C-alpha cells in the first residue's frame, strides 16, 4: 500500500531547497526530488537584520514554483523551515506573513539547537550504521555557514554539545578580509579554528578518546558521498584516507578541482575551508574514522515527520539525548543528582495521573522532566536569587533538541518554582515571544512542579513511593514514608494553592506509614 508524498523546504542562508519524499511503512523514506535555488540572503540579514524586498520577491517566486512542484508529485503535507538567516531577520513576522499570503507556504523558524537536533536525528533514522558507529566514542560535527556544532557521544548517549562560531562562510569571509593567498589558506584557517577548538577540547574532551567523527556539511559530504561509495557504505574514510583526498585537492587549481569533482568552481574555496576545518577537528579529537553520511536539513525534516507519523521507527531514543543534555548542564552547575531524580519522579507521577485534567502532551512531559533536571542550576551563582539565576542560565544555554519557545517554557517553569508567579497580562518580559497557549502550559507545568517541590521541601528525599489519585475536588497524594513529614505538610499549603488555582483541585497529602 502506498504511503504519502511529503515535501520539505529549507530556507537557508544561501540556498532555498525543496526535497520531495515518498513515505511508506514498507519502504521508509525515499527521496524523489531535490531542487536547489542559490540565493544569498544570509549576508544581507546578518548585516542589516532585514530581507530586502528584492529577495522577498525572489523567495515568493521560488516558493510559488515549489508549490507547483509539490503538486506535480501530489504531495499531501509539507514542512518549511527557515534557519539562521531567517532567524536573524527583525521583521520576520511580517515577511513570513507576506510569503504565506502570496504562496500559501508557512515557514517555521528553527532555533539553532532544533536545527542541529533535526540534522542529527536524520542520520540516526536514515542510516542503520548509526548505532554501530555510536558504540564507540563519537563526535558529530554539524558545519553550517555561520557556526559549527560539535556533539560528543559516549556509549550511545550524548554527553556534551557545543556551538563554535567557525562556520564555513564566516571563515571564508575572514580569509577574504585578510586577503589570504591560496597557499596560505589552510594554514590560516587552521590557526583560526585551532584557537577555538583548544578551548572546546579543554572543556569537553579533556583526555577522552574519540573514535569516530560524523560530518554534516554542504561541501565535503557530497564529495565523500561520490568518491567513497562502496560495499562498506557511503562516505566512510579513515583519517589517513581523508587527508590523502584533501592533499590531492590542495595540489590542484580551483578549475581542476571543480572539473575533477564535478562541482561548481565557485564552491571550491568553500570546499577547501570545510576540509581544513574537518582536518583540524580530526586532529583535535584524534578520531580515526570519518563518516560523511551526506544528509541535509530537508532529509531531517522528512525523517522527523516520518517518525512522527509512524512510517519509521528509530532504534535510538532521541528524548534520552535531550535529557542527557539537560543532565550534563545540571552537572556543570553542580546540581544534586538525587534531588533531581526524586523531584522528577514525583512530578512525572503527578503529571501522568492528572492527564485528563491538564490535557498536556508527551512533549510537555519532556519539558517538565527537563525543568526538574535543571530546577536548581541557578544556585551555582546565587542561593538568594535562585529563580532568576536559573532562568538566565537556562536561557543562555543551548539545549539540543529544544526550540526557543520550549526552552523559554522550561526556564519560566524553573523560575516560577522559586519566584512568585506572574500573570500573562502583567506585561512581564519573561513572556516575550510566547503565546497564550505557551503561557497556559507554563502555568500548568509550574503548578505540578510546585507541588512536587513542596513534597520534597527539605531536600531529604523523604518520599520514595508516591501515588496520586483524584477524589472529588481533591488531588490525593499518597506517600509511603516512615519519616517525619511535619514540615512538608505544614508548608505544603503554600505550594498547593497555585495548583488549586490552575486545576481547581486541592492537593492533599496522605501518609501511609510504613511499619
Amino acid at each position, binding site marked *: *500500500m*502506498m*504511503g504519502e*508524498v511529503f515535501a520539505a523546504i529549507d530556507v537557508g542562508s544561501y*540556498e532555498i531547497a525543496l526535497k520531495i519524499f*515518498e513515505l*511508506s511503512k514498507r*519502504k521508509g523514506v*525515499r527521496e*524523489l*526530488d*531535490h*531542487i*536547489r*535555488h*542559490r540565493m544569498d540572503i544570509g549576508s544581507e540579514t546578518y548585516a542589516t537584520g532585514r530581507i530586502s524586498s528584492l529577495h522577498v520577491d525572489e523567495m515568493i517566486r521560488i516558493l510559488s*514554483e515549489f508549490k*507547483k512542484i509539490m*503538486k*506535480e*508529485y*501530489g504531495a499531501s503535507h509539507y514542512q518549511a523551515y527557515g534557519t539562521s538567516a531567517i532567524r536573524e531577520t527583525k521583521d520576520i513576522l511580517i515577511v513570513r506573513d507576506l510569503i504565506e499570503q502570496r504562496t500559501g507556504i508557512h515557514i517555521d523558524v528553527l532555533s539553532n539547537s532544533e536545527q542541529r537536533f533535526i540534522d542529527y536525528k536524520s542520520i540516526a533514522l536514515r542510516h542503520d550504521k548509526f548505532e554501530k558507529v555510536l558504540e564507540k566514542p563519537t563526535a558529530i560535527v554539524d558545519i553550517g555557514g555561520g557556526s559549527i556544532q560539535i556533539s560528543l557521544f559516549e556509549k550511545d548517549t550524548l554527553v556534551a554539545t557545543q556551538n563554535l562560531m567557525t562556520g564555513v562562510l564566516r571563515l571564508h569571509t575572514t580569509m577574504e578580509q585578510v586577503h589570504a593567498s591560496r597557499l596560505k589558506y589552510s594554514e590560516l584557517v587552521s590557526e583560526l579554528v585551532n584557537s577555538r577548538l583548544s578551548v572546546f577540547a579543554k572543556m569537553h574532551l579533556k583526555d577522552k578518546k574519540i573514535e569516530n567523527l560524523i560530518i554534516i556539511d554542504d561541501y565535503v559530504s*557530497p564529495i565523500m*558521498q*561520490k568518491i567513497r561509495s562502496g560495499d562498506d557504505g557511503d562516505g566512510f574514510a579513515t583519517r589517513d584516507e581523508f587527508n590523502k583526498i584533501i592533499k590531492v585537492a590542495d595540489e590542484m587549481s580551483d578549475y581542476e578541482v571543480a*572539473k575533477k569533482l*564535478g562541482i*561548481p568552481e565557485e564552491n571550491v574555496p568553500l570546499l577547501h575551508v570545510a576540509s581544513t576545518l574537518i582536518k583540524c577537528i580530526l586532529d583535535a579529537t584524534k578520531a580515526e574514522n570519518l563518516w560523511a553520511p551526506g544528509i541535509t536539513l530537508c532529509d531531517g525534516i522528512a525523517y522527523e515527520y516520518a517518525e512522527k507519523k509512524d512510517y519509521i521507527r528509530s532504534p535510538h531514543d532521541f528524548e534520552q539525548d535531550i535529557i542527557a543534555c539537560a543532565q550534563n548542564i545540571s552537572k556543570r552547575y553542580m546540581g544534586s543528582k538525587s534531588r533531581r531524580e526524586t523531584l522528577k519522579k514525583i512530578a512525572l507521577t503527578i503529571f501522568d495521573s492528572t492527564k485528563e485534567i491538564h490535557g498536556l502532551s508527551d512533549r510537555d512531559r519532556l519539558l517538565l522532566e527537563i525543568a526538574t533536571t535543571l530546577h536548581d542550576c541557578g544556585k551555582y551563582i546565587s542561593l538568594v536569587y535562585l529563580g532568576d539565576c536559573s532562568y538566565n542560565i537556562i536561557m543562555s544555554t543551548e539545549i539540543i533538541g529544544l526550540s526557543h519557545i520550549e526552552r523559554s517554557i522550561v526556564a519560566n517553569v524553573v523560575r516560577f518554582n522559586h519566584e512568585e508567579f506572574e500573570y500573562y497580562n502583567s506585561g512581564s518580559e519573561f513572556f516575550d515571544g510566547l503565546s497564550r497557549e505557551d503561557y497556559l502550559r507554563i502555568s500548568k507545568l509550574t503548578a505540578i512542579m510546585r507541588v512536587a517541590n513542596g513534597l520534597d521541601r527539605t531536600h531529604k528525599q523523604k518520599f520514595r513511593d508516591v501515588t496520586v489519585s483524584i477524589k472529588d475536588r481533591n488531588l490525593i497524594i499518597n506517600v509511603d514514608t516512615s519519616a517525619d513529614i511535619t514540615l512538608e505538610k505544614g508548608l505544603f499549603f503554600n505550594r498547593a494553592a497555585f495548583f488549586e488555582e490552575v486545576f481547581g483541585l486541592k492537593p492533599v497529602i496522605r501518609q501511609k506509614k510504613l511499619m
Partner: protein
Amino acid sequence: MAKGGHKKLNEFDFENPKLYINRELSWISFNSRVLSEAEDASNPLFERLKFLSISASNLDEFFMVRVASLKDMINAEYSKLDIAGMTAKQQLDAVLRDLHRFVDHQYNIYNDMLIPLLGKEELYICDPKNLSDKDKDYLSRYFDEFVYPVLTPMAVDSSRPFPLIRNKTLNIGSLLKKKEGKDDVDFATVQVPDVLPRVIELPQEFEDETIRRVVLLEQLIMAYVDKLYLNYDVITSAPYRVERNADLSIDEDEAEDLLKEIEKQIKRRQWGQAIRLEVDKSIDKKLLKFISRELQVDDSEIFSVNGPLDLTFLMKVYKLEGFDELKEHSYKAPQAVPEFDKGEDIFEVISKGDILMHHPYETFENVVKFVENAAVDPNVLAIKQTLYRVSGNSPIIAALAKAADNGKQVTVLVELKARFDEENNIVWAKMLEKAGCHVIYGLVGLKTHCKITLIVRREEDGIKRYVHLATGNYNDSTAKQYTDVGLFTCAPAYGEDATAVFNMLSGYSEPLSWNKLSLAPLWLKDRIIDLIKREEEHALSGEPARIIAKMNSICHKEVIAELYRASCAGVKIDLIVRGICCLKAGIPEISENITVRSIVGNFLEHSRIFYFENGGSPEYYASSADWMPRNLERRVEIMFPVENDKLKAKLWHILDTELKDTEKAHVMNENGVYVKQSAVLPEGSKKINSQKIFGDEASKAVGELNTQNSRVFVPEMNPDNRF
C-alpha cells in the same frame, strides 16, 4: 587490425590546421553526396528528382546562413583563422568557387540525365512558346483568370526606386521601351507569385493520352509579359532570384568572440544584403548588369544557370499524381515495435524493461501514445518535455494541452531559437500556455536541443518515473524520414537524472551528481574526451581499444585532436558521419587508424550513437549532440548510456550494418575525397543497403510476432476503461 601504439604521442602537433578540413567545404562535399543520389541510376527516377530538389533547398539554406556568416566576418574584419587555418576571405573564395562547380553539376544532371529520362516516361516540362494554339489558348485563359490578378509589376524610373526584391522569391525582370516616346529604356520587375502552384499541368489533348505535360509558372508569365506593360514594348525579359542575408540572428556555429565582434559592429552589418543572384544563362547582358548593380552583387555571386531557377520545384513534380512506379517502394513503412504490439498498457510494457526504438524502421507512434496516454491516465501527476521542432499539426502538442486540461502538471520547454521555426514555435508555445501548461521559453544564451520526456506517475508501489530519451525531435512527421533512436525506461537512475535535467532547465542548481546522463554545455565535452582518452590508455597498455561513432557532423577541434591522438596510440576508430567532417582520415602516422564514412540514402541519417570498447566491456551511448562546438558548448544536450545487453546488441547491429553498407555509403579517402562504395565494389560482392536491411528486419520482427499470436484472439477494450 589497428596499427599500434605510437610511442611518441607528444611529438605531434595534433592541432596543426593542415590536419583539418574547412567545415564549409566539407559541407559542400556532403551536398555533393546528396546530389550523387540524383545521379545514381539505381534510384527510381522520381527519387532522383527529389534528391536534386533536396540538394537545391540545402544550398539555399547554406547561402542564407553560412555564406552570409562568412560575409559578416569579412565585414567585421574578423581575422581569426578557422579550424583549417583559412581566413574568412579565403573561405568565401573557395566556397564560391566550389559552389559554382556544384551548381553547374546540378544543371548537368538536370539537363543531361533527368530531362531525357522524364521524356522517356512521357513527362515533359514545356516552354509555352513551343506549344500548340489549343494549349496556348488554355494557358492564356489560365493566365488571365488566375495569374494576372495577383501580379504586381513595378517599374523603376527616376521617381520610383528599385523595389525590395524579397529573399528567395522568383522574379521576372524586363527592359521596356515606351511605345510612343523617347528611346529611353526602363526596367520593370514582377514577382512570380508564391501563392500559385509553380508547376501547371496542361490538359491532355485527347482521351487515353499517356503523355503528361507541365509548364512552369515563371515561363507562363514570361510568355504573356507584354500584357503587364501595355504602353511599352518589352525588349527582353528574364527570371532572376535573389538570396539575402536574411537571418536576423547570428549563426550560433560561430565562435563566441566572433559573436561579440559582430554585435559590436552591428550597425555596420547590412541587413538583408544580397549574397547570391541566380539568373538564366540566356539573360540579356544589359538586363543582368542593371539587376546586379541594383542588388550590389559582384560577379562571383552571380550564378548563371542553364535551366529553370530554383530546382526545388522538382519536389512539386515528385508529387504529381501518377508516376507511382517511378518512386521508391522497396523501403518499408514504419513498423510496429514488437514490445508494444501486445495491446498492453504502455506503462506496464516499459515497466517490464527498457525499450530501444530505431526510427523510422520502427514507428514513432509509441512516443506519441506515451504522451497521449499520460494525458488521460488518472495516475499520472506530471508530464515534462522539451520541444525543439514539432510538426504543424502535432498530436504531441494536442496531448500536452489535454493533459493540462485534465489537471496534470505539465512543463514544456519550447525552444524558440530553433532556426526557421521561431514563429511557428511561438504560436504553439502560447497555445500550450493558454491550455494551462507551464511553458519555459528556452534558456538565455543556450539552445535547448536535448530530447527528453519525463512522466511522473503514482502507482501502487509509490511514485514512479517514466523517461523517454532520444536522438531526434518530437516531430511525428520528420520521424518518418529521419533515422533516430529513442529509449524508454523507468529505471530510477534515469528518472532521477531526468528530474534533475528539468530542474536545471527551470533555473535551479545543478544536482550534486548525475547517475547516468551527461549534459552539455557543462559536462558532455569532457565526458567524450575522457571516453576517448580511456580508449587511448587501453591501446597503449595493449588492451582492446575501439571507437565507433555515428553522428551528423564532427568539427570540434579539441575532440578531433583527441581522436587523432587516440588513433596514434593504436585505437581503431570508425566514424559514420553523414554531414560535415573536419577530420581527415588516413593521414600517415596521424589518422591511419581512422575511417570516415557517410551514409546518404532514402532516410536522413540523424541518430548519434557512440561505441567505446572499454577494454573488453563495451559501453554504448546515444545522444542529441553532434561533436560540434555549438552542440558541446552552446546547447543543452544529453548523452545517455544504453546498458541492457539486448539493447546494446541492437545498437551494435546498427553500427555494424552501417559500417558494412556498400550501397549508400561514401568513404573518405586519404585526400579527403568521398568515394561511393557502390562505384568501387568488386563485381560479385554482396550488396548491402543498411537502411533497407533495417526496414526488412523491423517488418520481419512484427511478422514473427503476428505468427506467434495468430491463434490468440485479442478482444478490443472498452475505450472508457482503458486506463
